[in-house]
């Protein structure tokens, strides 16, 4: 359910740019999706196949690059992937703080046929 309006948005953005560039078809869409963005790749693909029918994006391949969230250690500065139920740095044991790594949710590029 959650991915439905988001997938509509992805198609809208891709179509807008493809139309501006005079494309006849969108071949592929590459998304960058952090694990903390809360979006599931398989669901996006499923909705995409349905919603893109009849648009320039019909038949396009969705390529998703997932990004694992990382924290930054407040002690030694190490970027690390947290362990379950802990925010502590595996290197020095100090607390980690949140970073933007793992919250990505954007269209990196599209491939179009002109």
């Amino acid at each position, binding site marked *: 359910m959650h991915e439905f*309006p988001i997938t509509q948005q992805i198609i809208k953005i891709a179509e807008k740019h493809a139309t501006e560039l005079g494309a006849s078809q969108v071949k592929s869409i590459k998304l960058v999706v952090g694990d903390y963005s809360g979006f599931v790749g398989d669901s996006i693909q499923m909705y995409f196949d349905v919603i893109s029918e009849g648009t320039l994006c019909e038949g396009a391949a969705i390529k998703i690059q997932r990004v694992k969230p990382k924290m930054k250690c407040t002690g030694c500065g190490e970027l690390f992937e947290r362990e379950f139920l802990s925010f502590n740095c595996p290197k020095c044991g100090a607390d980690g703080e949140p970073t933007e790594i793992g919250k990505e949710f954007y269209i*990196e590029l599209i491939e179009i046929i002109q």
Partner: protein
Amino acid sequence: MHDVLKVNLMANIHDENDHIAAHTNEDLTDKNIYVINVMGAPGAGKTTTLKNIIKSLKYLKPYVIEGDIESDIDTRDLRGLGIDTFQINTFGACHLDAPMVHNVVQNINFNEKGVLFIENIGNLVCPAEFSIGEHCKMLISTVTEGSDKPYKYPLAFEKADIIILNKTDLIPYLNFDEEFFMKGIRALNKDVPVFKVSGVTGEGFPLVAEWIEKKASDEKGVNCYHHHE
């Protein structure tokens, strides 16, 4: 022969939502309305918390938007107390988004300066990801949910501007590890205020109301970015 062309977009998929949220925020700031996005799991006591906070407000008129998947039970309850309350039903969607809130806000007559509480869908995941035009995100957590919640739902705790710990009257009957809970919050959100309350005894709410009225009076201008292409 067709050319295949790679086009770099770097386009944020939330842009449209964020843009509408910025509009809502501007409109309501102009009308002297401070907007709070109220988040918490189902059963955390979101509506009860609102009722208690509203009782303790001294200067600001309360307005409420109730977000629910179905039903208007909470809306009728709040209207019964004389609070201007409006309903959004999402019919399955797991969070409110900026267009839904924008549509409802257009039809509300904000006749006095005040605070608009927007009670999001009961869920600790998705509501944290979507801006709806708020000045402040309030997270309601409870001692019955357990002390591991910051570790299991870090985004909600990271994004909160105020955290309410509800049902504290039950602490004697539970194994709630407050130190572990607070350690998780402090790692994610160093300075966020945490208020301990009980919806049953009413304890703690006057301080929350005071914090809100102070924040609302400090709010000058618009804190969301906003641009037109």
